[in-house]
């Protein structure tokens, strides 16, 4: 049994008096798509940012291949991530944004053209980010995540702003990546976006993990026929 790509154990984060996440524990395996499902404000982004080292846990641990993100050598070659903000200046072009990301991680410039082609932004790459639609910014964020062809994808609401064709493209991309052996961890509050491709689910509500198991087991346990039914059942308990 291979070690998990991502392992979160007892993760707790408080901001002042507000407990954002409490005792969160789950694992994400290689070769699978794990859906991180919860409503807005349930703690998904906080959890993901804690895994990436952008937020400091109040308690517990979050590791990638057994190591904290801040201890990874060349982290972008291991983890490609889309966090809640694009992280790009509106006055620069898409290409320049990726050049800066690539430079910061020592990734060759050749990867930029490949990433732009993969996300379908090659024609718009020369335009300034301030002129991009939400969907285009999301595609650019995915391009940045894919630059170094990482073995783990950690994506926070990647379908946000994408049109139906874009969502279909995203589902195909994530499914293919997992089929090639990557670990895909993707958060969403819209089940319909990704329900057809997830192998495992982590359901979170008000900062507490309600379920962390394979989809098949969840369906059996909840006697549901669809993932949506199962999630609703879990959240109603």
């Amino acid at each position, binding site marked *: 049994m291979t070690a998990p790509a991502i392992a979160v154990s007892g993760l707790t984060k408080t901001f002042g008096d507000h407990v954002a996440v409490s005792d969160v524990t789950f694992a994400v395996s290689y070769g699978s798509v794990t859906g991180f499902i919860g409503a807005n404000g349930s703690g998904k982004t906080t959890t993901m940012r804690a895994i990436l080292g952008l937020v400091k846990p109040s308690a517990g641990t979050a590791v990638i291949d057994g190591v904290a993100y801040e201890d990874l050598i060349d*982290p972008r070659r291991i983890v490609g991530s889309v*966090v809640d*903000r694009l992280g790009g200046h509106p006055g620069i072009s898409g290409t320049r944004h990726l050049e800066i990301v690539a430079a910061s991680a*020592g990734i060759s410039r050749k990867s930029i053209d490949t990433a732009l082609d993969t996300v379908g932004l090659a024609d718009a790459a020369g335009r300034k980010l301030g002129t991009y639609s939400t969907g285009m910014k999301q595609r650019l964020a995915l391009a940045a995540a894919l630059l170094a062809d990482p073995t783990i994808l950690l994506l926070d609401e990647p379908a946000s702003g994408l049109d139906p064709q874009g969502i279909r493209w995203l589902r195909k991309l994530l499914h293919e990546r997992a089929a090639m052996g990557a670990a895909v961890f993707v958060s969403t509050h819209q089940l319909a976006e990704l329900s057809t491709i997830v192998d495992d689910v982590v359901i979170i509500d008000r900062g507490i993990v309600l379920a962390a198991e394979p989809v098949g087991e969840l369906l059996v346990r909840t006697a549901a026929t669809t993932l949506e039914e199962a999630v609703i059942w879990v959240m109603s308990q």
Partner: protein
Amino acid sequence: MTAPSHVANVLRAERLSVLSTPAARLLLVASMLMAALSGGASLLAVDDITTDASLQLAMHSSTVATMVFALVGGLYSSTTDHRFGLVDQRLLSQPNRAIVLLAKAAISGVVGLVYGLLGAATAAGITALYFRSQAERLEITDPLVTRALLGIVLAAPLFAVIGVAVGTLVRSQPAAIGGTLAWILMAEPAALVGLPNVGKWLPGSSGLALTFSPDEALLDQTAGGLLLLAYVALVLFAAVASFRNADL
């Protein structure tokens, strides 16, 4: 342990980022314009430019603008990173926060040096032009001139780094820029007048001393420079400590 190549990557990305955003260029042009305007105004106001006191005042008036703009440049650069989430992208590539911040400070210091060199050239140029209009000749090797020019070349990068550090501590762009300018342009001058024995030890005053201000209430140029260097170290240390533990 961070490899030298990783540090080089962060520096390269930071350099590319600064060169890509128009704000740095705009601030630099504005800095030179203000240096020319304030130096020119001071030159027109003095009775006899050939006296040491007048020459020192005119040179200093030109260089102070450069110092303030370099500070604003550093503030703008670091607060923009937080405003648009650029700092997240840096840390995803290089999780060592001290390295990311120090790289930013280093590149901003180089940008500050450019401010300083161009500011010095502007001050020398506008003063030389005025001298020529008065049928006089500005001696660049005159110690009064070289000390003023050297002062701004040294002060501008230090203030740029202070700007980066303060912008990291106070991430809100309006608060960082507004608060710092209020301190430098209003609080410190008031302190220097009202409590000169306290005011001369403050960072802005040490910058004025380094840029060879004729104000006798200030420290001498060398002491001012050393004090400013100490302030840079202090605020940078605080910024690294704060940034290391910050939630982003």
